[in-house]
């Protein structure tokens, strides 16, 4: 039965891993099993049909809802049947693979959007994802693994989670599972071993996942502490003084251009702002008198970046000004910005002569401000 409109929002729990096969789904189902045994109304709302035998075993004994079948280009695909889950109205719904992109023709394009519907209906959701699916980590993952992950989940969705559980396993154990064929089909194992599962990749991804989990745990402590008078002693000296200490609040300004490197700049700015508890604004300065006078291609790039910033909960501003670096720096001064974030984009000599080399000019002009030139992490380092 659908719940009445005043039902409190359901809480979200995320099982965070660092690669396929670490055991996220297994852990989620095992915990679901335990909850069912305690008498909690748990259902499996979506669960990969090609799952590993051990994992399928865990799902037995928990009510599993039928998937929605969607025809696309002559093939049948299975997606979560969000309507059916709402109709069934369980206390807890288990939804595998939060970062999944739905097949065209689905009501919503991303599974995390379906999860929002369930949460809004007051259903508690447990779900799984890997660290590389966190939007703001996308460039770091690219830098570490050389692989660009396409399916991402906005940081804000992960931040909603009441609880993050780190699912950890050693890379050796994971590689054993892989070689035994317990993760991928045999024909895919070789490809995986030379790609994502390559030696140092797994260690680096594992470290990232552990640090991300620690950061998420830390954020939830701050949220709890802000509502309580009594404080549990904290581990770090800097944080013992709390966020409202005598340090002036940092304000980060991200300079947006049509250059593709801006997406990476926005992600990095979001991440740094989160850790520093800073405010974050994104600014685009157009040299034409009207935004609509920009060439169509450039305007589309700008609009895409502004939308992307807003999707990561960054306030956006658009200003006109013939001298872009000067307008950016003056905006920063007027708004007590402490750090300007600019992209280290490749600059053509011609553009440099035209004064289009924004980052260099911003660095030169903003002698009284901190300017962070964010590296292009898409190119791998060769030392």
């Amino acid at each position, binding site marked *: 039965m659908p719940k009445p409109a005043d039902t409190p929002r359901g809480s979200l729990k995320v099982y965070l891993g660092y690669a396929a096969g670490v055991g996220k789904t297994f852990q989620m189902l095992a915990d679901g099993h335990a909850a069912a045994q305690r008498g909690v109304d748990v259902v499996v709302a979506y669960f990969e049909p090609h799952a590993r035998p051990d994992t399928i075993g865990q799902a037995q004994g928990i009510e599993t809802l039928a998937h929605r079948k969607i025809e696309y280009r002559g093939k049948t695909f299975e997606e979560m049947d969000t309507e059916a889950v709402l109709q069934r109205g369980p206390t807890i719904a288990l939804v595998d693979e939060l970062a999944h992109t739905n097949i065209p023709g689905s009501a919503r394009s991303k599974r995390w959007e379906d999860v929002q519907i369930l949460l809004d209906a007051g259903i508690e959701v447990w779900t799984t994802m890997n660290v590389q699916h966190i939007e703001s980590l996308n460039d770091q993952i690219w830098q570490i693994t050389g692989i660009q992950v396409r399916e991402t989940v906005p940081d804000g969705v992960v931040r909603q989670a*009441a609880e993050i559980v780190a699912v950890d396993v050693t890379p050796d*154990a994971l590689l054993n599972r892989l070689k035994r064929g317990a993760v991928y089909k045999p024909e895919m194992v070789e490809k995986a071993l030379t790609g994502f599962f390559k030696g140092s990749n797994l260690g680096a991804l594992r470290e990232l996942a552990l*640090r991300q989990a*620690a950061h998420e745990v830390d954020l*939830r*402590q701050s949220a709890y502490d802000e509502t309580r008078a009594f404080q549990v002693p904290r581990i770090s000296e800097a944080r013992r003084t709390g966020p409202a200490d005598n340090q002036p609040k940092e304000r980060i300004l991200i300079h947006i251009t049509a250059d593709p490197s801006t997406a990476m700049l926005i992600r990095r700015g979001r991440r740094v702002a989160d850790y520093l508890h800073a405010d974050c604004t994104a600014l685009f300065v157009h040299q034409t008198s009207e935004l609509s006078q920009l060439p169509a291609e450039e305007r589309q790039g700008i609009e895409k970046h502004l939308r992307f910033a807003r999707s990561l909960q960054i306030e956006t501003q658009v200003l006109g000004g013939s001298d872009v670096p000067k307008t950016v720096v003056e905006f920063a001064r007027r708004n007590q910005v402490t750090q300007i974030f600019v992209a280290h984009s490749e600059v053509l000599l011609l553009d440099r002569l035209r004064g289009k080399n924004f980052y*260099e000019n911003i*660095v030169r002009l903003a002698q009284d401000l901190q300017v962070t030139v964010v590296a292009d992490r898409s190119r791998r380092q060769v*030392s």
Partner: protein
Amino acid sequence: MRVSELPKPSPERLLKQVQAEESKRWGAKLKIFLGYAPGVGKSYRMLDEARRRHERGEDVVVGAVQGQQSEDVQALLRKLELIPPLQTPEGQPIDLDAILRRAPQVCVIDPLAAQNPPGSRNAYRWQDVQELLRNGISVLSSVNLLHVEEYKDKVQTITGKNTTETIPKSFLLAADDIVIVDVPPDLCLWRQGEKLTSTGISNFQERQLSELRELALLLTAEVVDAQLESYVHAHGIEPVFGTHERFLVCVTPRSNAPAMIESGERNKERFQGELHAVYVCEPGRSKRERVTIRRYFDAAKKAGASTKVLESNDPISAIVEFAREKRITQIFIGHSDHNTWRDRFFGDPVLRLIRAAEGIDVRVFPH
């Protein structure tokens, strides 16, 4: 010999290193299951792995078990061979001689942190474990954060709990494998017999456990980072960037070093990262400058930074080279305030650094 004077590893040497690593793999391995508090399920995870290995044909025995056991753990223990510990009035040390005689491939020692009774061959159980490893027996063991010597005081500050039975952190860092067994605090309390609340932090006890949980996750990340570094060295591959925030403050006599160091310290704390400070000493620098730098370095050390003087005629290359070696993710440097003939000729040094520091963020500070 200074590090910079060491010859680059030859292919033969690298191969030897790799082979040494491999041969270690054929020998005994230590795997530790770390938990942030009792009730997270370390023993279960560990014994479940022991069971799986036993079923795959490995010769597994159990040398020590925890006092209180859940039904799940008891069920696993029934499937495994036990070498009972010795019964003495002062405690139950593992029967080291019996295990060595039995010579299994894998031995489960639960828990790792225990003091042996007076007169035992080794004062601590972790030394018994070392003896097993030296004799070619792999060990699966479990430890709680409270029992890691370097974390004992922190845990006591948070929870008030104390212990005398500890293992050194270096023992963890030297383990072949470490796994963190992570569960939300409410589930952990539920296993200890408390009522299950909800997900998230909803009471004081959960808040305390959450603090321990963060510490345990960061400790595991540190061990993983150390393993990653030795892997990278042993295989002679390029270092991995970006797993961990590492800040490098470039100190010069005219820069606002105190502001950069203070910001570096705050960033280090917030990101749970590393802080380094360097000064590039070009030939012909005055004595007064050296005094200033020494003062800045003292401040940097107080902020928890490692400090280093680099000697070079080419400051930018020296900084970038150092940053790559230390896997720095952000370089802090002061705005260039003076226009020497050299800058005019070669270009602004800050802009040259930004161009050279490919893959690393550069944060430019006001004077």
